C-alpha cells in the first residue's frame, strides 16, 4: 500500500562526467531485486567506464508509479508490472518512444514470472489446478484487479485457462471467472494486502499470487506453513522495462540508463533475477536454476487477449467484464 518510495536527493549532478544519478521508478515486489542489481550494476559501470553511478529506487503500486511519471517525476528508467502502465505514461504527451517495447530483447522484458497458488501446508483442500478454485466451499484470496496491476495478471490467467479448456468459448470463460470470484470473500487493494489476509488473518484456502511473491512469502513465513501449487496452465507475466526518453535526453543520461537496462540481460543480471525468484530469459541461467522453477505451460497476453490495451479495455475499465461479474447478480 505504501505510496512512492522516498526520493530525497536531487538529480542535479548528472552533468558532472565522473558521477551520474539515475532514478528507477518501479513497483512494489521488485524492491529486493533492484537493491541487489543496483549494487552489481554500480560496480560494473565503474569498472567499464570509471564513472560513479548512484541509482535511486522508488517503489509503489504499478499504476500509481506510472502516474507519478506522468505528473512529472523525472524517472530515467521505469520497470513496471505491465506494459499497459508504461503505455499509459504516453497518454497525454509522448514521453517515451511509442515503439519502446521493441527496443530490448523479449518485448523489453528481461525476466518473467507466472501466476501460481499458495496453499496451506499439506494442501488440506487438495487444490491442484484452476478447476479446484471454482468448487463450492473453497475460499480464494486475490486482490482487486481494478486497483492492483498484479491482480489483473491473476484474473487473465484464470480467464486464459478457461478459454483453453473450453475451445476458446468466451462465454464459458466468463462463467468460470465469475464462479471463481464468487469464491472470493475479500478483495484487497494490493497484492501485499492479499498476502497478509491469507497468511496473517488465516482467511481463505488458496492465494493466487505471482510466483516470485509466493516464494518470498514462503521464505519469510516458513516452509512449514505453506506450499506452492503450480497449475497446469498459467500466464507468462512479463514486467517490462524502458528508458523514459524525454527525461534521459533532458538530463543527458541516455547512455548510462540504456546500459542499466541492457545489463539486466547479462549473465550477472539474469542470475540476480533468478535469485530473486523471477524466471530468467537466458537459457543458460534458467538451466542453472531449473530445480527452482516448475515447468508449466504458459500463454501470453498477446496470444489470448490481443495485448494489454485491449485486455484492459474489455475486462477492467468501467463497465468491462469485471464490473459485469459483480453488478449483474
Amino acid at each position, binding site marked *: 500500500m505504501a505510496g512512492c518510495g522516498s526520493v530525497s536527493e536531487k538529480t542535479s549532478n548528472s552533468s558532472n562526467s565522473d558521477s551520474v544519478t539515475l532514478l528507477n521508478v518501479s513497483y512494489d515486489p521488485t524492491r529486493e531485486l533492484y537493491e541487489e542489481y543496483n549494487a552489481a550494476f554500480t560496480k560494473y559501470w565503474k569498472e567499464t567506464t570509471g564513472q560513479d553511478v548512484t541509482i535511486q529506487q522508488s517503489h509503489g503500486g504499478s499504476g500509481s508509479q506510472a502516474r507519478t511519471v506522468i505528473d512529472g517525476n523525472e524517472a530515467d528508467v521505469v520497470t513496471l508490472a505491465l506494459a499497459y502502465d508504461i503505455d499509459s505514461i504516453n497518454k497525454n504527451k509522448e514521453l517515451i518512444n511509442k515503439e519502446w517495447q521493441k527496443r530490448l530483447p523479449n518485448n523489453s522484458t528481461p525476466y518473467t514470472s507466472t501466476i501460481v497458488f499458495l496453499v496451506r501446508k499439506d494442501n488440506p483442500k487438495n487444490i491442484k489446478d484452476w478447476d479446484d478454485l471454482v468448487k463450492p466451499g473453497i475460499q480464494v484470496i486475490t486482490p482487486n484487479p481494478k*486497483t492492483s496491476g498484479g491482480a489483473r495478471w491473476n484474473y487473465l490467467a484464470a480467464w486464459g485457462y478457461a478459454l483453453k479448456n473450453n475451445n476458446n468459448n468466451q462465454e464459458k470463460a466468463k462463467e468460470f471467472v465469475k464462479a471463481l470470484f464468487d469464491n472470493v470473500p475479500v478483495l484487497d487493494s494490493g497484492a501485499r494486502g492479499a498476502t497478509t489476509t491469507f497468511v496473517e488473518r*488465516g482467511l481463505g484456502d488458496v492465494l493466487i499470487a505471482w510466483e516470485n511473491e509466493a516464494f518470498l512469502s514462503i521464505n519469510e513465513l516458513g516452509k512449514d506453513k505453506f506450499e506452492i501449487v503450480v497449475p497446469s496452465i498459467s500466464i507468462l507475466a512479463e514486467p517490462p522495462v524502458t528508458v523514459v526518453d524525454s527525461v534521459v535526453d533532458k538530463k543527458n543520461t541516455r547512455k548510462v540508463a540504456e546500459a542499466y537496462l541492457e545489463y539486466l540481460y547479462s549473465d550477472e543480471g539474469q542470475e540476480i533475477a533468478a535469485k530473486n525468484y523471477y524466471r530468467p530469459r537466458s537459457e543458460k541461467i534458467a538451466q542453472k536454476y531449473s530445480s527452482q522453477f516448475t515447468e508449466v505451460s504458459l500463454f501470453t497476453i498477446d496470444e489470448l487477449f490481443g495485448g494489454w490495451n485491449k485486455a484492459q479495455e474489455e475486462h477492467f475499465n468501467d463497465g468491462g467484464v469485471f464490473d459485469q461479474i459483480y*453488478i449483474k447478480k
Partner: protein
Amino acid sequence: MILTIKPFKLKQQSVIPGFGITMGIALLYLTLLVLIPISMVFINSSSLGLSNFIDIVTSERVAASLKVSFGTSFFAAAINTVFGLLIAWVLERYTFPGKKLMDGLIDLPFALPTAVAGISLTTLYAQNGWIGRFFEPLGIRISYTPLGITIALIFISFPFVVRTVQPVLQGIDTEVEEAAACLGASRFQTFTKIVIPELFPALITGFALSFARALGEYGSVVFISGNMPMKTEITPLLIRTKLEQYDYAGGTAVAAVMLIISFVMLLLINFFQWWISNRHNRS
C-alpha cells in the same frame, strides 16, 4: 466547515489592528489552500459534459458505495457523539489518578497513520483475531463487513467530539446545576434541561466534524472493509479505481458528488445547530 451565522460588522473594535491586511491574508490563504484545490475537482470533472457526469455518478456501483460511505460515517459519528460526551464528562467532572494520561490518550488516533490503524483493527477484529474470535461463534463478522468499516471510522474520528465538548463543559458553572437542584429539579431534569441544551451546539459541531472526517477516510478502511463491490466498497476506493484506469475526470466526478452531498449535509447540520441554540437562548 462550521458556518457561524452572525451579523457582519466591519467596524468591530479588536486588539489586533489592521483589518485590511489580516482579512487579505485570510482570504488569500483560504483561496490557495481550500478554494482552488476544491474548485479543481469541479473543473476536472466538467470536461465530461453533463450527461456523462450523470451516467457516472448514478451508476449502480457508485450509488452503492455512496450508501456504504455515508451510512457508516453517519453511524460512526453518532456513536462518537454519545461516547465522546461521556468521556468528556468523566474528564471534566471527576478527579482520579491517571486523568492527565487519559486526557492525552484521546488525541492519539490523530497521530497514528491511518494505514497502521486499519491493519491493527483488521487483525483484532478478523475471525481469528483477539476480539473477532469471540464474535465469530455468535455469527457476527466484524472485519470485512460494514460493521468493521464503522469501527475503523469511529477510531479515526473519535477525538473530535471529546475536544469540542470538553471546553464547553468546562465553561458551564456548576452553580447553575446546584441552583436547579435547590429549586427541586431531579438529577435527570438538571441534566436534560440545563446541561444538555448548553452542550448541544458543541455536540452537533463534534458530530459534524467526525462525520466529515469519516467520509473522506481511505487509509484505514481499505484494510478492514474487504472492498467487495456493491457491499463494502467505499466511495474513496471507487475514486481510486477510476484513477487507476487513468480516468481523472471520472474520479473527480464522483468526488464532486461526495463534496456536494457533504456540503449540503453540513449546511443543514449548522442550520439545525443555529436554530437549536437560538431557541434555547430565547427561552
